[in-house]
């Protein structure tokens, strides 16, 4: 018995080794072949506890910094925070690593970034999705007036709804989430006022600033459950503002459509048709925040010695926020709606239409 075991073991080992040998037969590269000499500029990034694979602002900011690194010839240093207590340590690590510009993500890093910036006045910082009451000389806030694009999404959703009910829900009730919901609510109201219709919005009450939240940005099954509730109540366009939890909503909508309904999804942050391809056939449109582009621009400007601390505010005008193309739904959205959306967009840009949210960037 023992002998047999040993033999099988031997055979497995021989197989394994020969596999290793076979794969190890490649030719060695020329000596001295290394990455081309990079610049002495260094851009760094510290995530919040979502990590760089959060399918939301950490991920897209990281993408922007990586792209900037490719263009400018540096390999960005990155630090994921596992807990809030890591923020200060990670920022300190970036200071030791001699980063020229350190990017921090989210309001939770606001205090830590401020402290690091004050302790290192010669270093530059940029913080995504957070703005200070009093500007700090070496911190550039990158914020988004997301309500503008969400407004268009709300209008489009109301126009597309056959049941006369649309819905939205959030992950956690924080301003960067509720700003989507405020804009969406206003867009629905605008449609009702213009068309004399009565499309109802479930999941968010703008006046009370309260609605449906799943409680985190992780549990997809909760997103599925909430979405099923909305579908049962008759909603047929749903906008989840909850990062990866949106996938749960996607699964629920797909299942409902397979059972004969015709519901659709409005994705947020990035163009879901491209970033969440599993649900592309139910993706009406997306409310995009082009964080990667903004980050890339800020880093490039800093490299060229043009850093300033005025907040970058992403708007429809500077394409910092946008409504994604309809893709597969393009034929289903009427030309009339498309023209109206264009007109609304122009109106928001020239200021004749005001989209206001309690969570809008102050500056």
């Amino acid at each position: 018995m023992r002998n047999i075991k040993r033999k099988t073991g031997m055979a497995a080992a021989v197989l394994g080794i020969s596999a290793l040998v076979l794969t190890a037969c490649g030719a060695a590269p020329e000596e001295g072949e290394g990455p081309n000499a990079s610049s002495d500029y260094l851009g760094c990034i510290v995530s919040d506890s979502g990590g760089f694979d959060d399918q939301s602002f950490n991920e897209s900011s990281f993408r922007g910094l990586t792209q900037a690194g490719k263009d400018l010839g540096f390999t960005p240093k990155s630090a994921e925070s596992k807990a809030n207590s890591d923020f200060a340590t990670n920022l300190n690590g970036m200071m030791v690593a001699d980063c020229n510009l350190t990017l921090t993500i989210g309001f939770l890093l606001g205090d830590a970034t401020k402290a690091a910036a004050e302790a290192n006045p010669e270093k530059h910082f940029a913080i995504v999705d957070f703005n200070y009451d009093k500007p700090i000389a070496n911190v550039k806030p990158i914020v988004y007036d997301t309500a503008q694009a969400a407004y268009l999404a709300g209008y489009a959703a109301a126009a597309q709804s056959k049941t006369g009910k649309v819905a939205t829900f959030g992950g956690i009730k924080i301003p960067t989430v509720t700003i989507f919901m405020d804009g969406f609510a206003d867009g629905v109201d605008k449609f009702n006022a213009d068309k004399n219709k009565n499309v109802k919005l479930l999941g968010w009450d703008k006046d009370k600033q309260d609605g449906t939240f799943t409680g985190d940005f992780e549990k997809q099954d909760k997103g599925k459950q909430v979405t099923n509730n909305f579908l049962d109540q008759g909603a047929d366009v749903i906008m989840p503002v909850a990062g990866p939890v949106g996938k749960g909503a996607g699964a629920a909508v797909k299942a409902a459509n397979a059972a004969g309904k015709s519901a659709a999804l409005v994705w947020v942050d990035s163009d879901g048709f491209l970033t969440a391809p599993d649900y592309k056939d139910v993706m009406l449109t997306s409310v995009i925040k082009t964080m990667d582009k903004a980050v890339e621009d800020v880093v490039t400007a800093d490299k060229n010695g043009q850093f300033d601390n005025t907040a970058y505010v992403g708007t429809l005008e500077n394409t910092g926020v946008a409504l994604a193309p309809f893709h597969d739904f393009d034929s289903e959205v009427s030309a009339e709606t498309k023209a109206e959306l264009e007109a609304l967009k122009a109106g928001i840009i020239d200021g004749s239409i005001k989209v206001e949210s309690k969570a809008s960037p102050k500056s």
Partner: protein
Amino acid sequence: MSQSELSPGSPPPIHANTIDEKPHGTWERITRGPGLVSVLAVFVALVLGGLLIAATDPKVATTAGYLFSRPSDFFQALWAAGTDSYVSLFQGSIYNSRQGFEPFLETLTVSTPLICAGLGVALAFRAGLFNIGAQGQIIIGAVMASYAGFAWHLPIGLHLLLVILMGVVGGAVWGGLVGLLKARTGAHEVILTIMFNYVALYFLDFLLNTEAFQRPGESNPISPVMDPSAVFPALPGSRLHLGFVMAIALTLLVSWILKRSTIGFEFRAVGANPAAARTAGVNVARSTILVMALAGALAGAAGVAQVAGTEKVLTAGIAASLGFDAITVALLGRSTPWGTFLAGLLFGAFRAGAVTMQISTGTPIDIVLVVQSLIVLFIAAPPLVRAMFGLNRKAKSRPPTKPKHAAPAPAAPASQGGGA
């Protein structure tokens, strides 16, 4: 050694025996004792972690592709991947040429809440209670302490004392409730503490959505910054704060409770055998409530170390994974106060060093969590570690030879004299 053993002038046959017996005796005590197993577990986990780092390193993978045309590249890359990560782990946790011993201060800072919460878990372990509830106790402690810190404005000194008191009381109530429920209803403490963790977590989420716990004019779920009079004074130029002294004091206190006090004796008696303890006249119910309240108070102190030490604000992530790391720390420390203290320092060093490791070598921070988990795995299975180092075999093969040597009666006293 041989000189000192010769000098007492013991008779030759016994003397020969002591040389043979003495090292084996000591060796056996160390290997049988839990201390070496803990050290070896850490060592094995580090080696495995190093291999894992090397295996996932892109440079190792590329050089493995042409292993036979230039093997030196592969082994260099393999060695570099493993060692670079640990070198930067060391540089981030103990010493580096640029910052001196500043990283070590950071290690002490990070380990402060781990030690406090670890002590709480260890104390409950000693009384035979598996306290999973440190997480919730930390949260409640942090909530109470931070509220006292930002909402009340009191004179310096008094304010901090009150913050500490609030945090400790908060944790003690949260832990004591579990003890009370267990003592009165017989509900299992594991289930109770897990559920109490959830209650605390969602209670914290709820509080952070109320205006009382938010900054004026903002709706982010983050509390106002605590008053300067409510936070631990920090060592200038570092994050190390007076909370670390509190952690040392608590270690001393727990050590005293377990070794010298009557309640400590009762805790240990209940932990060893509740039925026997009851027969011997120990009030088991009272002991259970008291030990859970004390464990909660210690975890509450960890919450205080978080809000009044490093964070200075209350957020939803205030307890991070401290409550669960504390269980690991208590296990590694074998539930002894000073063992827990040292284990807390080790984990603090891992956490502090992981940041530097992540930044300078790009090794994912999760590898540190893997190493931590491996340590627990090996500690939970001491025979596995002993088997790895061949310690079991020696112990097994020895008994037959033992009676032969152990026969002469005067051997034991002589060997003691030799060792002195």
